[in-house]
């Protein structure tokens, strides 16, 4: 234990700048095909599957900002002695469907970090809250995301 330094802990509460995304039908279709959706509304891109936003809101940055593992050197990731990162999970509340042409604004905040002992060694959990609204301020999604560093 003791994987999280005081310096790392100070990052709790910090947010990324808001991300503005315009939703395209073609991106919904690509996502729907790659996730083996079966409902026509998703395959036609009329509506986005619920998990679509997980990808749509990922940062698109230059390749020199990718680490040797291929992961973006994203902000809101503290310096840790553990380096292997896994997607943990999400808990999401949905207020509105996402459709082509929607203009969304997402704000992501590092809201917590904590340690646990796993069967193969220590784990650090990074918890992010994601707030997605339309540009007009209509709530779309509120989500808690967890990433596991081991």
């Amino acid at each position, binding site marked *: 234990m003791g994987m999280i330094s005081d310096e790392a802990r100070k990052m709790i509460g910090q947010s990324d700048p808001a991300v503005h995304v315009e939703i395209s039908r073609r*991106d919904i279709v*690509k*996502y729907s*095909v*790659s*996730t*083996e*959706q*079966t*409902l026509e*509304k998703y395959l036609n891109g009329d509506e986005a*599957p*619920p*998990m679509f936003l*997980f*990808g*749509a809101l*990922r940062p*698109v940055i230059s390749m020199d900002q*990718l680490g040797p*593992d*291929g*992961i*973006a050197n994203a902000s809101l990731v503290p310096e840790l002695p553990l380096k*292997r*990162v*896994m*997607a*943990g*999970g*999400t*808990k*999401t*509340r*949905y207020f509105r*469907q996402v459709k082509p042409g929607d203009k969304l604004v997402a704000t992501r905040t590092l809201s917590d970090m904590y340690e646990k002992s796993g069967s193969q060694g220590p784990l650090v959990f990074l918890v992010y809250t994601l707030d997605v609204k339309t540009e007009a301020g209509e709530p779309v999604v509120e989500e808690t995301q*967890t990433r*596991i560093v081991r």
Partner: protein
Amino acid sequence: MPKFADIKPGDTLPERQYRPTNVSLFLYNAAIWNAHRIHYDEIYTKEVEKHPAVVVDGPLQGDWLAQAVLNWLGDDGELVEFEYSNRRSSYIGDTLVSGGKVESVDPEKREAEFSLFVKVEGGDITAPGRAIVRFHA
């Protein structure tokens, strides 16, 4: 097509098999703009991150959990709340199975809560989940 009045705790969702491949994982990670090498670079995955094979994305299994209930629901309602966790890794070569069951029904809100799973066929659950759906009036 489910009818809300007929749904009761213990009802099960249809199970579905998935066999992720290098091609399907490439397309998924391209679609979500994820370059993490454990999802396409077998040598790196084994030698550096010490997995036995290329890793199936946790969020992809999250999507399959959501599909387990939404494909059953069709256009009769909408997803209100959804959660999942990535309990253990799964790999190319695994056959994964999604499914779930009704845990509770709230007639006043016209909502039903489901427990969901993705598991390795004949083995452990890799991604448990939970969803609440609201049926249209």
